[in-house]
Structures are given as structure tokens and as C-alpha cells.
């Protein structure tokens, strides 16, 4: 058994806005009735979080729950725990119609940090990133350039961007180029 490596292998682009490979992150796609108590309980159990409200992200370090759609969450756990977490969920939801699958390896995960991070995002996604419209804990699935991506903003104002693994380089470079192009001065 080898050491797992994230697709971006730790790439970092330092600057006024820094784009960084967030490294390996355990991710579980959970589909089911999000209102069901058993679902609530097991989500709490593996992530320590409640069911997030529509378009919200509840994240604490490497654990969290992201609202993907009315019947889908993306659960965050430490990479090494993903398989075990899936087992836990499957066990807990036996008899309840659901789907829980480990997608940790199917994703690339980067962060965009620093003043101006919002503008870097706004150069690539058709979303209102003004502080008033997109605050800490807000979550959105949209495009980054030409590919699907999901992102949320943390308390420090950094953006966390999750895309499919195979387009990790594309997303990273798009954000890097946007960061290097400098600020617009239109979003705080």
C-alpha cells in the first residue's frame, strides 16, 4: 500500500491572492431524505454537523456537511476516515433508501485566500460574490470557467473550491491566472 497523493500534489501559487491545493480530503456523497431523523443522526455522527440549510456549508476543519441539492449532501471527513464513515452510514441507514459513496478520490480541492479572493472567484463564476450576497458559510454549485464546481466561503474570507479530479489543473490554473492578473477593485 502506497501513500495516497492528491491530484494537484500540493501545488501552490503564492501572491496577494494565494491559490493552494487543499490536499486530500475525505468526501462522501450522501443521497437520501435529508429530513429523516436517521439521516440527521448519522450526519451528526460522522461530521459533527447538523443538516445544512439550503445553499449552506457547515464546516469545522476537515469535517463538515455541504448542501448539494434537496436530496444530496457532500460530507467532509478526514481522508483516512472516509471508507469507515461510509460503512457507518450504510449501517445506520440499513433499510432506509439512500446512497452513500466515497468520492474522496474523485475530487480536486483548492483554496483561494487573501484580500481579493472574492474578485478572483468573480472572474470565473457567474455568482454575486459581494460580501452582502455571499458570506461566510454560504455555499454554491456553479461553473468555474467551463467546468462544474462547488465552493463555499469560510470565516476568514477564504474560498474553498471543489471540482472533479480530472480537471483539477484547469481549475487551479484558471484561478491562478485570475489571481496573477491583479485586483479589479469592485468587490470588498
Amino acid at each position, binding site marked *: *500500500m*502506497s*501513500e*495516497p*497523493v*492528491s*491530484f494537484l500534489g500540493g501545488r501552490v501559487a503564492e501572491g496577494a491572492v494565494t491559490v493552494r491545493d487543499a490536499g*486530500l480530503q475525505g468526501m462522501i*456523497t450522501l*443521497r*437520501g431524505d435529508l429530513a429523516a431523523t436517521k439521516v440527521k443522526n448519522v450526519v451528526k455522527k460522522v461530521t459533527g454537523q447538523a443538516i445544512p440549510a439550503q445553499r449552506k456549508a457547515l464546516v469545522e476543519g476537515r469535517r463538515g456537511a455541504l448542501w448539494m441539492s434537496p*436530496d444530496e449532501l457532500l460530507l467532509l471527513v478526514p481522508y483516512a476516515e472516509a471508507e469507515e464513515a461510509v460503512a457507518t452510514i450504510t449501517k445506520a441507514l440499513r433499510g432506509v*433508501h*439512500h*446512497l452513500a*459513496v*466515497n*468520492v*474522496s*478520490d*474523485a*475530487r480536486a480541492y483548492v483554496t483561494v485566500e487573501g484580500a481579493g479572493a472574492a*474578485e478572483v472567484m*468573480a*472572474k*470565473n*463564476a*457567474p*455568482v*454575486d*460574490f*459581494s460580501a452582502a*450576497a455571499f458570506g461566510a458559510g454560504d455555499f454554491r454549485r456553479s461553473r468555474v*470557467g*467551463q*467546468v462544474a464546481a462547488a465552493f463555499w466561503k469560510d470565516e476568514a474570507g477564504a474560498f474553498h473550491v471543489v471540482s*472533479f*479530479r*480530472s*480537471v*483539477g*489543473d*484547469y*481549475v487551479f*490554473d*484558471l484561478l491562478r*491566472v*485570475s489571481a496573477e*492578473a*491583479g485586483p*479589479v477593485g*469592485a468587490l*470588498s
Partner: protein
Amino acid sequence: MSTRLASGGRLLNRGRALEFQFNGKRLMGYEGDTLASALLANDQMMVGRSFKYHRPRGVVASGAEEPNALVNLGKGGKFEPNQRTTTTELFDGLYATSQNHWPTLEFDIGAINALFARFLPAGFYYKTFMTPRPFWKHIYEPFIRQSAGLGKAPKDRDADTYEHFYFYADVVVIGGGVAGLQAALEAGKAGARVLVMEQTADWGGRAVVDGVEIAGKPADDWVKGVVQALEKMENVTLRTRCMGAGVYDHGYILGYERLTDHDPVLQGPRHRLWRIRAKQTITATGAIERPLSFAGNDLPGVLLAGAVRDYLVNWGVSVGDRTVVVTNNDDAYRTAIALVDAGLSVPAIIDARPEGAGALGAVAKAKGIRVEEGKAIAKVKGKTRVTGVALCLQAGEGAVIDEIACDCVAMSGGWSPVVHLWSHCGGKLKWDDAQAMFRPDPARAPTGADGEGFVLTAGTSSGELGTTAALADATAAGRAAAKAAGLKPKTGKAPVANDVDETPMAAVWLMPQGAGAELKMKAWLDYQNDVKVSDVQLAAREGFESVEHTKRYTTLGMATDQGKLSNINGLAILSQSLNQAIPQTGTTTFRPPYTPISMGAIGGSARDELFQPIRKTPMHGWHVENGADFEPVGHWRRPYSFPRKGEGLHDAVNREIVNTRTNVGLLDASTLGKLIVKGPDAGRFLDMLYTNMMSNLAIGKCRYGLMCTENGFLTDDGVVARIDEDTWLCHTTTGGADRIHAWMEDWLQCEWWDWKVYVANVTEQYAQVAVVGPKARQLLEKLGGMDVSKETLPFMQWADGTLGGFPVRVYRISFSGELSYEIAVAASHGRAFWDRLLKDGEEFGIMPYGTEGLHVMRAEKGFIMIGDETDGTVIPQDLGLGWAISKKKDDYLGKRAQERSHMADPERWKLVGLETLDGSVIPDGAYAVGEGHNANGQRLTQGRVTSTYYSPTLKRGIAMGLVHRGPERMGEIIEFPKVDGTSVKARIADQVFYDKAGEKQDV
């Protein structure tokens, strides 16, 4: 001559002189100049040549409406043609050359066209150049093409970068004149999120040039005050050098920001395209002055009156020592007065109106200016620049009363509101007879997603030419926009300006009124395209009565300025010719962008590797390091083959195949789609999706399945594995992963939403490696960790376990006909697993193979390939796949379509194998010809090749193809013509060329 005055120029920084080049001449200007003002300051009156007649052309305007003064700018990767000098800010080292002439600007052979003008009227080319036919292609057209265009096309790679920016606002204000600023102020005070875009580098627009006083202070001060107030508001964003380029559906606004054009040493993107979503948009885009149509109105030295005033006030440039002003309205008097106040000579104001002007007329006369009322210009004198004008009665036919020497003519035919942005998305116009202008009709605004209007106009762009009226209009617009955006606007009085009483303008479309043919042939409407009054009248006479017809026939308004100066004058002439009112004629359609914008800006950062994403598998790095020859498969890059040093691609493919069939080969199959389908109704669902049964597949087993569209056509195939009681894993083609996933969601969400099924696309969770060949098992046994024997893991089964310490899922499936294991491992371990296989496989002679090897081996086995054997018109029955169509099921997607009469027709082309008699390879895409010809004299065909390769295994060409009644014609020989005129004969045969019994894969 045209010179720089010792003083004046509100935009100039005389402290910073700039050097620039025009046609090799080194010239000086100042910071704050435009290229146009700097050229005029250096007495460079002639700047270019017109499109058709190569007439001398000089600066006529001072802004975005300029049709004449276009130049080639820069060199190499910075070269840019057709740059408007009037909107090009001067910078140190600017390098410009004039366009559309040979050999020189001053002496241009093309000018000979002007002599033949009478033989080149509008649309003449539709009536000639027809015979003899070959002449068109070889003589006429090349000649016409050579004379095409103005600027040279860029040759070098664009050295600049571009970017996009998404922005969301309550109110977007387009235009930073006093009206735009006032509207923004009102919206801003109401708390709206406001974006103000001004296309030039400076705020204030015309008012600051005309010396208006607003709220008791000079316009300049008032503007500074308002801009400061706006800068203080956190909810307001201000941008200069940012043009409102287009208004699109649902409040989508395009902003074109030019970041480095004014100073190329600046770093960063050259242009930024603002993609704005606004609840309300206010266009405060001002108005454009109209030329007057008199003979010789195209000579260098004839400018718009407002432009002459701009050059004087903004840039301290006097375009002429002696300027004759000709007008049909009071505003042009301001130019005369400004010139005289600057100590320059104005020999006369020629006013077409018998009653002349109001208060400004009195001022002019008081300053001793000769005012000729009810008069007109019969013609302008001069060859390459103005030397004088001939005076006549406006009411007459042009009999010359007097001649006045001058070197500049400042003309004004009245003003037209800039309604382009209002109109882009369907805003309607109404004709204002008193001011002879089309103005926006607020009752018929462009409507948005909610069906309500989302564009307002403010100030002169509404048709309010007086400053006080414009400010009142802007105040109302700002408040209305804020209100419509859901905010509460403030109340209070709008600022008031010191307007003077003006006499109404008089519509003057031709000067003099009774001008004859000779004069009309010299009266220009479209300066750049050389469309004259006589051309429009000819079009009308020939029956091109719709304004669109006239435009397309004469090319009026189709030049780079899109008719900003010419459209209204043109359609007025057309209306006169048709004896109908102007609104009856109507306008042509206003299309975005307002002025041309760079393709680079529209493309943004999506260039080269960022043009479209390249999808990479976990082993991509290894492929690159080992010299893979890649081929694009959708957005993926897959190794086609791994040629070694000095080895040809074809040889490499053959080596990989032979080795796989004799030892063991390795294929990166990670791109294959993998979809988890789970739930109590999953089996039932898959039975509908696939043509065969999947619900009865035993846990632990695999089955090959086909999917059709509702049209019955084969769309995808792959191996399905039953994971547990209510979970299946469906493999799709590489291209099919996302498509089939979406297809499943479509049916689950929109048709069978009560079925309990969830789907997840786990394609990229796994690196999938096919270990293929007689020695595959030995290799896996060497890795160890699980039993891969035939007994525990037979053909068409799967198992979980570990190999060499890697957690894996192993499928015993084969697309090559060999003993084959497809092994899925977590993507993050993919590269390590691949490396391990190669290392441990050395002793077995392992070699990776690429997609071409894959294709050849599957063809040797007669397996079909979606996209090769299918093309959107092929049903499974055509491919002999009836065995994969369940007879038990009463329904599946595509079943009903396959019952359509023609689908069961025995006459269809069906799949067979093809063996060339001489062993050669049939060319790709070859057709088999049949007997006879069709109505059009074309040879009939009876089949075509779908896959064709050289088989290193059989050492001959093999192919599959769709042939008319193919399976019934085994052994028949059909003929495939080749491009070189020869043809290949092939025998119809079984499509399985290798291991017909299928023993090798089942060991």
C-alpha cells in the same frame, strides 16, 4: 492651418510632452491628448483614405462616432488595425500609420476610383462582373477582395491578455456625463448598489465643454463635486475607460474596460469584459451631432461643430485659423463664439434658418461675427483640405452668391440621442418632429424576465437637449431605477443650469434644398463607405424601398462606425425620395456592440490550455514522462500509443498488440464511465434503460448491456456489475459517463420520480487498469492478496480484495479477447498501482498499450465500438446484437421506436466482417459501390466501412462494415473505390476474425 494654441486645453497636462510617430514622422503631443487632437495640433489634416473611392479623409468628430480618422496602431504582437484616433489616448512612443492607400497617404493610386465614381454607383457590382464566368473567380473577385477592408489584419500572436469579471448591481448607469452622474447620485443616495461606466477617461461629457453653470457653479466644479460624493458611497462603483457595450436579455449588460490601451507599459490584462447583471439600467449616453449634406462635406477640414469646440476647449487646438460655421440650430453658435473668444477668426455663420438663432445669435452678432441667415453651402472648395466655401440660398438650387475663404468648416445638422443601448434589447423609438430626432419611447422599453421594462434613459439620450431639462430627467431616472430595484429614493429638487433661450432647429437634410445631381453626387452621407445622397436616391428609384434594403444595397451605415453619423441623414433622404414621413421609413436595427470590441476581450482568459479543460487520468503523468502519443477523446487526453525512440507510430501499435496477445499488456481504462445505481427499484430501472435484462443479474456477476435512445438508436454500451441486493455498477463509454448519468437523472426525475433509485457518478473515484494477456494472471498472482484463479474469479465476474497491498475491485471482463482483468483502485493510489504493475510485470514482458491497440484488438474480435459502428442512425438489430435485446421485456427505452416499419425492414444495411482479397487495408470511411446511378448521376452505394485496421495478429487488413442485407451475403465480394481512383475488393465474412470460440478470454 491647424495648430495648438499657446494656452487652454482643460484635459492637457502641458507639463508632460509625449513623442509619437505617424507614418514615420516624429510628432509631439501632451499628456491628455487623444491621437486625433495631437495630429490636429501638428496640422495633420489628412489621416486616411475612404473605402470605395479612396477620397482623402480627415478627423470629422471627437469621439466614438468618428468614421474617418482610423489608423493602424502599434507593431508586432501589439499591432491593431482600424483604431479610432478620436478615442485613442496619446502615450509616449505611440506608433501609428494610415490605412487603405498605396503607395502613400498623400499619393494614392486607388484615388483613381474617384474619377470613375459615376460608373461605380451603389450596387454596381451586382450588375456586372458576370461574364465570362471564369473571370469572376480569377480576375474580378480577387480584385474586389484586394480592395476590401481598411486596416491590415494582425499577423503576429496577440501578445496581450484579457479577462472577464462577473458583477451584480441594482442600477447600472452607462455614461458619465452630468446626466449619468446625477442619475447615479440619486440611485446611490437611495442605497442602491450602483455601477457607473464612462467610456472616456474623464467625467462630465459635453456640459463641461460648453461652459454650462449647474447649481450656480461651473459644470467642471459641479462634476468634481458629484464624483467625490459618489466615490464616498460604498454602494457605488465608478469606472472610466469602461464602455457599456451591449444590453442583453434579462438585464444582462456588457462592459468593455480598456485597462492598458492608454499606457501600454502598464502590467496586467489589456481589456476586461464586465458581465453585469443589473436590476435596472440607465443609459445616459448623450447625443451625437449630425453632419449636414452639402457638396464636398467629406473634405479634411470639415468637422462637426461640437468637435471643433471640443478640440479648442479640451485640447487647446484650433482646427483652422478661419472657421466657417454652418448650421440648422443654435448650438453651433457656441462653437463660433468659443473660437472668437479664443482669438480665432470666424468669417461667417451660415444658418439655414431664415429667422436665424435666438440669444446666442445676438451674442455672435455682438462679437461682430457675420451671420448669413437662410443661407447654405453650395460646395466646399479644396482638393485635400478645405480652402473655402461657396455660399448660396438654402431655398435655392445652389447658385453661388459669394465665396468665403476658410480652412475649416464647422457643421451642425442637429443632434441625435444615442439610443443604441436602449434599442439592443428591443426598446422602441418615437420620432420627435420639432428636434428632428428619434428618441426613446419610455412606454415601450425593453422588457426583462418579469415582463417589466429594465432600461431607462437619462438626459440628452432621452432627447432632452437643454441642461436643466436633462438634469431633471436624470434625477427622475435615478429615482425610478432605485425604486424599481426595490429601494426608497430620496426626494428634493433637481439641480438647475443656466440655459439660454434657443430658437428651434429646422430639419435640413440636403443643402441647398434644391441641389441638383452634380451636387448630390458630391454630398456624402457615409464617409467611410462612400455612400452619397445620389446613391440612396438611386436605391429608392430601383425599388429598394425598405430601409434595410437601402442599407444593404448601398452599404449605408455598414462601416466600422455603424452609421453613427450617417443613418438619420440617410433615411431622411430615403424618406424624401419615397415621399413618406421619416417614422414611416423607420430605422435599421441597432445591434451590439455599441462600438467594436476586441475578440480577445470576449474570449477572456480562455486561451491555449485554458481554452477548454484537459481531463487527465491519475496515470497522466506517467504517460507524459514515457512519451505517449496522445489523442483527444472528448476533453480527455488518452495515450494513442507509446512509441519508443526511433519507432514509428504504426510499428509501436503493432508491437503493443502482439505483446499483449503473447505476454501481457496494460491499458489505462480510467476514463470509462462508472455509475452507481442503487435502490429498491434499481433493477426495474436498469431493465428500462438497457435493451437486455439487468434485474436478474446475479450478485458478483457482470453482463454486457446496450442502451438506446427513445428513437431506438444505439447510444451507449458497457458492462454492468451487480454489487449487492440493490446496487449495480454501470460502465459506460468514455464519452458516455456524463451523458448517461444525465440521461438516468432525466428519467428518474421527470418520468419515474416515484421509483426509489439514486445514481452517483463515481467515474473519477477510481483509476482503472486493464491487465490483459496470457500472462495477466501470473502477474496478479505475483502481486498477491486475492485469488484470481478461474475457479474463484471466472470470466464475467468481479470481486473485491487486495493486490500488492492495494484495495482493489477486479472485473473479469475482456474487450480484447484475451485473459483480462480490469482492476479499479482508488484514484489517489492509481499512479502507484500502475508503477507497481509495470515493475512486477517486467519478468512477464509487460508493456502498456494505447487506444489504437485497444481498437484493433476489439476489431479482431468483432466487438462494436460506439461512434464507429454507430452514428445515431443505427439500431442494435443492424449490428447483429439481437441477442442483447430481451424478448421477455414488454418495454425499454427505444423499443417502440424499433417497431416502426422501417426499423424492421430487411433492406437495412447490417454489420458484417470484410476481408480484402489482397490483404490490404480498406481506407477509413470507404463506401461499397452498387449497380447504377441515382437521378443526380451519383453512383449508388450498398455499404460502407465502419472500422478498418491492419491486424498484426492476422498480418492482414481486417474491417467491419454495414452492408445492404449483409449477413445474407456471406462470401460475396464487394468493391470499395479509393480516393486515388483505384479500388479494393473485399469478401463479406464473419466479423469475428480472432478466436471465434472465445476460448482465450475464458481461461
